[in-house]
C-alpha cells in the first residue's frame, strides 16, 4: 500500500523536465496555481489542459504509475464532482430523480472544478516526481533568500524541509514494520467497523512517535558532531544552474497566463 504513494516521491529519469532548474519549475508551479483560477470556460480549460499534458509528456513519467499513485486523490476529485453536481442549483434543470436534481451549471461546475483539481495535482506531482527533494529545497532556499532581510530563517527552514523529506521513506518503512508487528499481535487495520479501524491507528502512531523523537535526538547529535552550527559561514555543495531552457519554461507559463486572460469570459 505504501509503495504506491507518489507524493513527495522522486522518480529518477532523464527527461527534459528532470533537467530543468528547480527554481524554474517552482516558479512555474507557483504561477500555475494562481492562473488556474483564471480558467472559467471551455476554451481556457482546453488551453490549460493542453499545457498540463505537455508538461506531463515532457516529464516521461509512465502514465500507469501516475494514475496508480493518484488513486486516493481520484476519490477526492470524484467527491468534489458530485458535491458540485448535486448542490449547485443554477441554470436549466437537466435531470431529476426523487430528491436528486442536476442542473446545467452544477454539471459545468462539477466538471470544471474537478478538472482544476486534477490539473493542480498533476502539475504539483510532476514537480516532485521530476525534482529531487533536495533540489526543491535548494530552489526554495534561493528563491526565498531575499526574505532573510526580514529575519525569516530561510536556511533553517530549508534544512528542516530537506531532513523531513529525507526521512519520509525511512518513516514509511518503519510504519510498515510497526503495522506488521501489531498485525502479528492481532490488530486489525483493514477489516472491521470504521470505529475499530481508527482505534487501531493508535498502537501504530504511538511507537512511530516515540521512535521519531529518538531519531530526531540522535540526528541532532550526529549533526552537531559533524560541525553543524547554523547557516553562518556554510558553503553549499549543490550548485543551481539557470539555463536558457529554464527561461523558456517561464516564458511558456507567461504565454499561458496571457492566453487565459484573453480567452476567459
Amino acid at each position, binding site marked *: 500500500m505504501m509503495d504506491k504513494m507518489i507524493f513527495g516521491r522522486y522518480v529518477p529519469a532523464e527527461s527534459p523536465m528532470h533537467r530543468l532548474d528547480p527554481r524554474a519549475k517552482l516558479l512555474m508551479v507557483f504561477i500555475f496555481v494562481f492562473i488556474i483560477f483564471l480558467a472559467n470556460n471551455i476554451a481556457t480549460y482546453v488551453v490549460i489542459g493542453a499545457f498540463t499534458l505537455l508538461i506531463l509528456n515532457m516529464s516521461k513519467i509512465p502514465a500507469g504509475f501516475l494514475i496508480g499513485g493518484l488513486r486516493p486523490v481520484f476519490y477526492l476529485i470524484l467527491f468534489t464532482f458530485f458535491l458540485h453536481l448535486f448542490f449547485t442549483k443554477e441554470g436549466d434543470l437537466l435531470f431529476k430523480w426523487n430528491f436528486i436534481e442536476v442542473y446545467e451549471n452544477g454539471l459545468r461546475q462539477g466538471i470544471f472544478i474537478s478538472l482544476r483539481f486534477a490539473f493542480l495535482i498533476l502539475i504539483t506531482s510532476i514537480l516532485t516526481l521530476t525534482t529531487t527533494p*533536495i533540489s526543491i529545497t535548494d530552489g526554495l532556499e534561493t528563491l526565498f533568500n531575499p526574505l532573510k532581510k526580514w529575519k525569516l530563517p530561510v536556511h533553517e527552514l530549508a534544512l528542516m524541509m530537506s531532513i523531513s523529506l*529525507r526521512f519520509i521513506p*525511512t518513516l514509511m518503512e518503519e510504519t510498515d514494520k510497526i503495522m506488521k508487528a501489531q498485525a502479528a499481535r492481532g490488530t486489525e487495520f483493514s477489516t472491521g467497523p470504521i470505529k475499530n479501524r481508527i482505534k487501531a491507528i493508535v498502537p501504530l502512531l504511538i511507537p512511530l512517535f516515540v521512535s521519531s523523537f529518538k531519531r530526531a535526538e540522535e540526528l541532532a547529535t550526529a*549533526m552537531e*558532531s559533524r560541525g553543524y552550527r547554523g547557516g553562518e559561514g556554510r*558553503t553549499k*555543495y549543490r550548485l543551481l544552474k539557470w539555463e536558457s531552457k529554464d527561461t523558456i519554461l517561464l516564458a511558456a507559463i507567461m504565454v499561458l497566463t496571457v492566453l487565459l486572460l484573453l480567452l476567459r469570459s
Partner: protein
Amino acid sequence: MNNALVQLEQVAFKYEGQEKNAVDYVSFDIYEGEWLAIVGHNGSGKSTLAKLLNGLLFPQSGRITVQGQPLTEETVWDVRGQIGMVFQNPDNQFVGTTVQDDVAFGLENAGIAREEMLVRVEDALKRVNMEQFLNQEPHHLSGGQKQRVAIAGVLALRPRVIILDESTSMLDPKGREEVLVTVRELMKERGVTVLSITHDLEEASRADRMIVMNQGSVYSEGTPREIFQLEEELVKLGLDIPFSIKMSTLLQERGVSLSQTHLTDEELVNDLCRLISRM
C-alpha cells in the same frame, strides 16, 4: 606509536539527576596511529566517554587535551574537525538526501569551497568503496553501506581520530565485516587513529590495544591477547568472549595441547590443523 594524540586526565562526568558518575575519574592516552578499542557492557560509561571526546558533553572535572589543545567550549569546533564520530544507528546519522550530499554535509559546515568539496567527496567515497553510489538515496542502501557513507562523511573532513561509537552493533555480520575491513584499510592508508567503542569483543579483538571499562572506570588495559587472558573476569563484567577463545579454552581444559589463546577463528583453525598434522 608513543605519540599521545588525545589525553584524558582524571575525567569525570555525571548525568543530571544521577547519583553515580557515569565516567569516574578516567585517565588514559590515545596514541597516534593505533586502533584502540574500549569495551564494556551497557552502562559502563563507554558511550559517555565517546561523547566527552567529541565535545558533545563536557566533563565536570578533569581535562581532555587533543594534540596538546585542551577541549573546552571555545575549542570544541576545532576538535570536532580533528575527531570524527560514527554513531550506532545508520539511519539516524544520515543527513543528506543522497550519498554525496551526506558526505558533503560536514564539509559544508566547515565552510570549504565547492571545488575542494567535489574532490574530497569523491575521494572519501572511493576510500570506502562507495563511489558508485554517489546519487543513491539512503533507503536504498544496506546498513553496512550507510555506515561506510558515514565513515566517508567523517573522512572527508580529514580528521586525525575516528571514533566508532557502537557503529557495527546494528549491522548484520556482512555489514560489520565491510565496516571493519574499511576501517583497517583506512588506518593503513591514511594513518588515522581509530577509537572503537563496542561491547562486541570479536570486534575489539582486531584492535591494537583494549581498554575494559566497568562502572565508569578503567578496569583493565592491554593488548587483546592480554585482555582475553582474563576470561572469567570478562564474563563477570557482562562481556561475551569470542567463540574462538571459548573454544580453545574448552579444548585446553580437555587436554588438547594448543598454544594459549586464539583471537580469531582462523588462528584456531590453523592451530588445530597443525596439531592434527603432527598426530
